[in-house]
């Protein structure tokens, strides 16, 4: 009886026996670690966001309901950070998803040099955020950097890049697109390689041109990959932090600060756990809302 149940794991008849005890013992280290280092901080963040804290020892001075949230939304710096968070998400998705799709289609043709290009993209993806931010920071340098040297050499006006409120955020996004586009591209490549070759061939026999094949055969077949790529890039864009901290520290005048950086600054620089936690909760709400909206929009059109 016991053997039969274990051999067919689908036939679930749960209860505490030798196997169940062994199984829970095997799961225990992972569960304890995740409970302590993921769920506990998460719950702490939610609870801290509802309390006020003493200015010096950072100990709780009592429950204050939604006061921290009211204080945050009254703070123009927070509203700016909230807006920037959405701006990062929109720009990152808007650039990476179409570019990743183009690159995947290009590399899927297996032209000479594809391996070189693919390796370069994987290299950018594997390098650390800190190091790539430092390298790009050097290239963006307004007075001695490489980009302005190139602009100057072709007689174009030099640009302030990271030192200007108008260009800093876009400059960070450009660097992040360069670094992260490989991830959705690899997802699309895997998706392209799982499309049976007969599908585009049949379409070609029916007289479809390359563009039609792409829009009506390839793209619909990539829908599952698109869902995954969108989801992963949304998380990537929402949590953008290291490049901002290294390249601009959130400046100039908060122009590049998002919620992740705002919470960090509130928590560690301004020693204000209450508002830091409240903005963390806001960031998680943004993440949940954006991914929920995406899955709603994409599911709405799904035929199967």
């Amino acid at each position, binding site marked *: 009886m016991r053997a039969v149940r*274990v051999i067919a794991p689908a036939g679930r008849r749960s209860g505490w026996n030798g196997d169940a005890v062994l199984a829970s013992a095997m799961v225990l280290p992972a569960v304890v670690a995740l409970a302590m280092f993921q769920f506990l901080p998460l719950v702490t963040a939610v609870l801290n966001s509802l309390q006020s804290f003493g200015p010096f020892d950072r100990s709780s001075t009592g429950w204050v309901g939604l006061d921290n949230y009211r204080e945050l939304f009254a703070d123009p710096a927070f509203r700016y950070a909230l807006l920037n968070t959405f701006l990062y998400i929109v720009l990152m998705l808007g650039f990476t998803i179409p570019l990743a799709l183009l690159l995947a289609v290009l590399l899927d043709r297996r032209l000479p040099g594809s391996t070189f290009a693919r390796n370069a993209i994987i290299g950018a993806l594997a390098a650390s955020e800190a190091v790539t931010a430092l390298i790009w920071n050097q290239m963006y340098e307004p007075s001695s950097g490489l980009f302005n040297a190139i602009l100057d050499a072709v007689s174009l006006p030099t640009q302030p890049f990271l030192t200007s409120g108008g260009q800093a955020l876009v400059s960070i996004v450009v660097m992040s697109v360069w670094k992260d586009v490989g991830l959705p591209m690899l997802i699309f490549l895997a998706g392209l390689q799982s499309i049976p070759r007969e599908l585009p061939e049949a379409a070609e026999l029916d007289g479809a041109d390359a563009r039609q094949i792409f829009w009506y055969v390839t793209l619909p077949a990539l829908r599952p990959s698109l869902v995954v790529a969108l989801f992963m890039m949304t998380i990537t864009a929402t949590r953008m932090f290291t490049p901002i901290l290294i390249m601009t520290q959130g400046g100039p005048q908060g122009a590049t600060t998002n919620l992740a950086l705002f919470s960090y600054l509130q928590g560690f620089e301004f020693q204000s756990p209450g508002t830091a936690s409240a903005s963390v909760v806001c960031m998680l709400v943004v993440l949940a809302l954006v991914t929920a909206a995406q899955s709603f929009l994409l599911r709405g059109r799904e035929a199967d």
Partner: protein
Amino acid sequence: MVALANSDLMSLRRAERRAYVVRHAGGIVTVALVGFIFGFPILWAALSSLKSTNDIVTGTFPLSWSSFVPLRPTLENYVYLFTQLKFQNNLMNTAIAAAGQVSIAVVASSLAGYAFARLRFPGSDMVFALLLLTAFIPVEAIIVPLYQVMQQLGLVSTYPALFLPFACNPFGVFLMRQAFRDIPVEMDEAARIDGAGPFRIFISIALPNVKPTIATLVLIQFIWSWNAYLWPLVVMQDPNKQIAQVAIANLKSIPNFPMDGPLFAAATAVTIPLVILSICLQRYYVRGLVSSGMK
């Protein structure tokens, strides 16, 4: 005679190849350009690490050969890095953190992954769903309360603080669970008939069958740990135990003392081996990246 036929064949092939290149010229040029754009910044940093700090600061603008290539190549940055800044200590700390993270991740993820894939216990579905839920929580979001947790545990500025919180992650459990699920149930069955208990089956049947997945897990965890910046920056306040990434970034912010040369040298020393590793093992690396988001 045979040689003649061969050379005929070769010239035919060459003509074919030329026709192919001409037909796809646009695509090939685009591919080459893509490779250049993505490869350039890291190669430029590696080349710049062979310039003196003065050459980096003054030699890039206006554009000339010295913007790209070290015209007076020197190893002084590396010498300074390893004799004055003792960067090898930071590398050692990174290695310690990576070793801790990788070994804990492999053990904890294999155990939990196997239990979720093959064994049943009350509430296993709910526990698995809760585990997966943590994949949605970015590090950046819990950094402040996580620091408080580490403070309460008395672990701030210790080595375990560097790797303990992230060694066990839902990605590893999920990856291992999928791998164990793909092993045919008949293999378990055969071992069970031979009298092996479930843990014995896990050790001697299941684990040897998922070696490629373990390689993927090791590589991904190693790269994550090697590249970690934010958490070590926050939790490690002892400069002697600080990891390489944070030490490199600190070189940027020394007032009135440009460290661009050593900075590029350190960035190169940390990044080039990692990039080569990821390219050589891209079969595992890509599989890990792609499957980390696949359901």
